[in-house]
């Protein structure tokens, strides 16, 4: 039979100069944690790593002998640590860290228990920290004296404490529940399906509940940055990570002379019109969260002062010669590429470095078409509240709207702002709050018109599609007029699922006026003029978008 090697239990513990002490036979009537730990009927210590401070050789010797007597199975190894003052955290932790780093841990064959009943409180705290930080790959063990008179002189009891709280079932369930609630809260209770978005929210939840470093939320306007910032704040408040208020400002509104004063405050008489002290937004946000939306719009002076405030938690109010203090967490929002702004000299590189430790890009709505249905339900609910009437949308109308909303034609250039406005408009115009197919049709037209005004292309193609499809030579040969038109047609085709989808998108106006009956045919004929078929222009190997 192959004898499997049983795991050995190794205890690391500091000699207790008071608790472990005892002379003469009466020492056996006293509870001595280190000896007692080796007398537990349900714990077998194979090896005891007994750490001691200088000058206790005699006590070490006595403890070693007593352990040998009560527990012949236990091998004791003693190490003298060079700690002069065991009440000094820096020195004590340093010495124990050195010990732990040099220790040949073999967690594959040995279980480590760190005995934290003995030693000064600073020793115990240091041991705890070393286990918690996994410098010692073990669990804590705590011993306690015998209870009751009859057990006096007995070894007492021990309890093993695993700091991996996830190993405690009820706690793990609570953490999970809490995290689920946090995620759901950040998503405003909307059951989003987009995996990338859900991952993003999970990450934000982790960071928001464990870090006080600035967060940077990027993404197009209307993607939900300020909504999310507010929810992050509320989550932190619920979890008691912040106690102060949520202060938000769009930096685009902070132009000119008032900007410094609005952010950093001023003292009375700082400038004409400064009739009283003004605390400024940073001071208002003390202990809370400051959300600076469109941070790329901040002027150079404000950027410099903000950097100071982030680094030192201090800044100078306008006209004051005394620095003000404020400890806030910054959430910054931007729809600009701040790196590009840095390159253009419009944004401070050091400030960007300070705020983009955690950058989260909120995707535009058109990248999350699977999330449009749950968001529609959410917006209907919001509209019901805003209009104080129950807003409903029958099945047909809903399907009709969603078909359009999730098609490539729907650009959602204003993202959630557009969706919110669309639903609010439909709800307001719906008789008795019931949105019908007709109401949806009208809204679709309004959206189309709005998006047509705001420019033709939904995404600027990074590559020249005309060159890609026709090749350099033939592309060069085209008139600029034809090339521009073809480029736009190709861009739409790339986004479309099918030839018909692309046709509908390209000839939407004619279609609305019922001028054209077969968009697909019209598109096919147009492409043929350049010697192209649908297969040449569609996304390769795929018929569906993303």
């Amino acid at each position, binding site marked *: *039979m192959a*004898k499997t090697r*049983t795991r050995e239990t190794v205890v690391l513990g500091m000699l207790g100069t008071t608790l472990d002490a005892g002379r*003469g*036979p*009466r020492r*056996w*009537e006293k509870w001595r944690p280190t000896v007692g730990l080796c*007398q*537990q*009927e*349900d*714990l*077998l210590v194979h090896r005891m790593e007994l750490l001691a401070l200088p000058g206790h050789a005699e006590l070490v010797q006595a403890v070693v002998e*007593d352990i040998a*007597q*009560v*527990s*012949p*199975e236990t091998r004791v190894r003693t190490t003298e640590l060079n700690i002069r003052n065991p009440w000094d955290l820096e020195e004590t932790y340093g010495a124990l860290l050195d010990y732990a780093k040099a220790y040949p841990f073999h967690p594959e064959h040995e279980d480590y228990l760190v005995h934290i009943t003995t030693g000064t409180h600073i020793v115990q705290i240091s041991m705890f920290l070393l286990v918690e930080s996994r410098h010692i790959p073990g669990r804590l063990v705590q011993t306690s004296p015998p209870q*009751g*008179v*009859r057990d*006096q*002189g*007995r*070894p007492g009891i021990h309890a093993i404490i695993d700091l991996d709280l996830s190993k405690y079932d009820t706690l793990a369930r609570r953490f999970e529940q809490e995290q689920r609630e946090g995620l759901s809260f950040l998503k405003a209770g909307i059951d989003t399906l987009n995996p990338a978005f859900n991952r993003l929210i999970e990450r934000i939840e982790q960071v928001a509940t464990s870090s006080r470093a600035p967060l940077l939320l990027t993404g197009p306007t209307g993607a939900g940055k300020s909504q999310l910032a507010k929810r992050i704040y509320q989550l932190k408040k619920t979890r008691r990570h912040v106690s102060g208020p949520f202060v938000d400002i769009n930096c685009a509104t902070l132009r000119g002379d008032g900007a410094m004063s609005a952010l950093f405050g001023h003292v009375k008489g700082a400038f004409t019109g400064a009739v009283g002290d003004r605390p400024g937004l940073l001071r208002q946000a003390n202990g809370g969260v400051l959300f600076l939306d469109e941070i790329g719009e901040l002027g150079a002076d404000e950027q410099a002062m903000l950097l100071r405030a982030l680094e030192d938690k201090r800044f100078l109010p306008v006209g004051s010669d005394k620095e003000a203090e404020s400890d806030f967490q910054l959430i910054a929002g931007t729809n600009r590429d701040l790196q590009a702004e840095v390159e253009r000299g419009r944004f401070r590189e050091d400030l960007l470095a300070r705020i983009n430790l955690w950058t989260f890009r909120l995707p535009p709505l058109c990248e999350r078409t699977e999330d449009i249905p749950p968001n529609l339900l959410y917006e209907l609910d919001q509209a019901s509240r805003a209009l104080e009437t129950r807003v409903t949308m029958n099945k047909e109308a809903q399907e009709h709207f969603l078909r359009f909303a999730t098609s490539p034609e729907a650009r959602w250039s204003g993202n959630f702002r557009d969706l919110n406005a669309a639903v609010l408009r439909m709800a307001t115009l719906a008789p008795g709050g019931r949105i019908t197919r007709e109401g949806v049709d009208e809204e679709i037209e309004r959206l189309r018109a709005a998006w047509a005004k705001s420019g033709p292309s939904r995404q600027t193609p990074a590559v020249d599609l005309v060159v890609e499809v026709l090749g350099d030579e033939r592309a060069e040969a085209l008139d600029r007029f034809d090339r521009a038109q073809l480029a736009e047609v190709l861009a739409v085709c790339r986004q479309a699922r099918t030839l018909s989808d692309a046709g509908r998108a390209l000839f939407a106006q004619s279609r609305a006026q019922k001028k054209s009956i077969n968009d697909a045919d019209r598109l096919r004929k147009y492409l043929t003029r350049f010697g192209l078929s649908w297969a040449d222009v569609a996304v390769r190997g795929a018929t569906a978008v993303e």
Partner: protein
Amino acid sequence: MIRIDGSKGEGGGQVLRTSLALSLVTGKPFQMVNIRAGRSKPGLLRQHLTAVKAAAAVGEAELEGAELHSKELTFRPKALQSGDYHFAVGTAGSATLVLQTVLPALMTASGPSTLVLEGGTHNPAAPPFDFLTKAYLPLVRRMGPGVEATLEKHGFFPAGGGKFEVLMQPAPLKPLHLLERGNVVRRQATAMIAQVPYDVAKRELETVGKKLGWLAEERRVEELKRSAGPGNVVWLEVESEHVTEVFTGFGERGVRAEDIAEAVAEEAQVYLEAGVPVGEHLADQLMLLLALARGGSFRTLPLDGHAQTQIETFAHFLDVKVSVEEVSPQVREVEVGKRG
């Protein structure tokens, strides 16, 4: 393979030790499940593990599940080895319990053995060394094997540090019949103290004297100067024509010396009044010896759960029949014979 449910009967360590002893003697492997299943700390504790390891050494046994907290153990002895053994038990177990586990097998081994045991010699919940030498071993000698035990140092709970040696000259076990006690020829109350006030011993002996009417010359204090830790034991020795019995009480902190002595005197009194030769603790051990001898009988007090468990455990390993007959309300006659 013999399969034993460790939670049946008294459901503790005894069924394990008896099974180990019988497996060593018979060479039959066994598997025990639900070890100490009903106890507050179920599975093998250190004292049980110590007994298992000692038994494995004596029988060159293969082990499975011999780990702390394990609820299943497989024990496969390969060859019983007589010889020199040294078991350091510590205080989490009792050296005398370890001895009781391995001794029956060494009684019938092919050669003599020397055992040195270190650890607790006078632990509560274990037969103290004086019980072994004065009550148990004389019966072993009467059944054939030559056995001597010498105490070198006392070991009390919780310090341990005791040491004793046992010499075993094996011989086939002969049946023994112990139905009569005969006249009491000597009574001796001993209060042993080690680093405990003398007054404790004095009060214990006075209590025994009062309760049992034992004379001053039948009571003595034994003061130990060089034990590893403090301890107090009071034991009563009743030497009769055909047998010697020993009753023991252990001093405990928080319990008055008088109460300890009172309890042990009460135990002796019940024994004396019943007129039987064998007391409660000796009965369990003697039954095992008779089962190994496949014959014998004795009279004792009403049997408790431990004895019943012993009888059930024998049936797994041995072809013996144990019958218990009620002779009178206070007297039972145990008879051991071949089955069928």
